[in-house]
């Protein structure tokens, strides 16, 4: 396959309107594209995030059943969190893993950067594999608005849940799981 093209930023000509909400901002922008055309469309500005696939020594994964108001559903998701300003993605992930699952990890592998919705969000999610897990006797408290349950699943059970057609599928978690399976030779 041809080598990956280099980034080609579009030129922002004008922000016609914007609306802030907590950690994100919605802008309606007019852009000049690399091919010279102009286009106007809305985009979410996001500070970025990290996500980890935590795998126990016995092969089970640590995963969450988390309520998401935007889709009014409880989704199966790996632990994740938004980057604080200037924060290294791995630092974010170490903190979020502890807060959301009650585990700490001492072995980390990068699984790449994913874009959940490149058509309308500039969010980049940094994916990790977390191993050598140990449960924390006193895990730190998480965010007040997080409504989640921690589950331990066999890889085959996770594969079956994803393929069942019964789950509303979280794209960032399945992308990370696809990459983790490659690294783990599953």
């Amino acid at each position, binding site marked *: 396959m041809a080598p990956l093209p280099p980034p080609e930023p579009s030129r922002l000509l004008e922000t016609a309107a914007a609306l802030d909400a907590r950690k994100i901002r919605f802008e309606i922008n007019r852009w000049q594209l690399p091919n010279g055309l102009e286009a106007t469309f*809305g985009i979410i500005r996001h500070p970025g995030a990290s996500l980890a696939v935590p795998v126990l020594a016995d092969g089970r994964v640590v995963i969450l059943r988390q309520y998401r108001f935007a889709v009014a559903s409880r989704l199966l998701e790996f632990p994740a969190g938004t980057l604080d300003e200037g924060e290294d993605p791995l630092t974010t992930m170490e903190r979020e893993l502890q807060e959301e699952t009650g585990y700490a990890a001492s072995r980390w592998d990068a699984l790449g950067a994913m874009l959940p919705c490149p058509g*309308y969000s500039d969010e980049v999610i940094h994916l990790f594999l977390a191993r050598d897990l140990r449960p924390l006797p006193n895990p730190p408290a998480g965010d007040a608005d997080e409504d989640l349950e921690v589950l331990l699943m066999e890889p085959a059970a996770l594969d079956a849940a994803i393929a069942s057609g019964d789950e509303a599928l979280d794209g960032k978690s399945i992308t990370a799981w696809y990459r983790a399976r490659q690294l783990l030779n599953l």
Partner: protein
Amino acid sequence: MADAPDNPHQSLAIEASLQGEAYGFVRERLRLPMGLEASFGWLRHPPTLMVVPRWADGRVLLLRRYRPGVGQRLLEFPSGRLAAGETAAQAAVRLLDGLLGPDPGPSAEGADTNPDPHGAEDGPAMAAPWEPLGQLRPNPGYSDEHMALGLVRLGPQRDPLPNDRAEGLLRGDDGSTGQLVSLSPAALDGALASGDEPLDGRTVTAWFLARCRW
């Protein structure tokens, strides 16, 4: 099962909203099922689909698609919004015909090797059957988008070598442009594992599910 909104949040007030051409954004005060009240911002997006097109020779059809919002050319399966009243199967035909030209119709060989398990609900125009793969929530943290994922096995009458298509073939509402790419499953897996490729979460999810029924 888990998708049932058994204990949904309550909307208390719309604090602000901003409408774009294709989708809008609201900042809304909500009471979550756990009891907490707070303001959240989220995108209200029309339903969409993404199709994994499989050539008769086993390769898959993708686009190298320029995304202005992230300034990169991503490897993506064809995707788009559902038109009003349109099923995902119908939208898949529309998308693929737009990319490849009208389907010349199933050949006798294609009809034998490509039975249509969903044809009854898709109507007689459904030359290439839509095999549902799942329902994706591309960004459940701040978008209500529902994306139907499906596999379409292209008949042997389709041209498997559309490599002469020029840049700018596809032009989306968001200014995106794209170029067609056909890859073997191993080449796609390799590209996604390379570490060089920015991963489109929708595409990788659709591919994960398509692989389950390859």
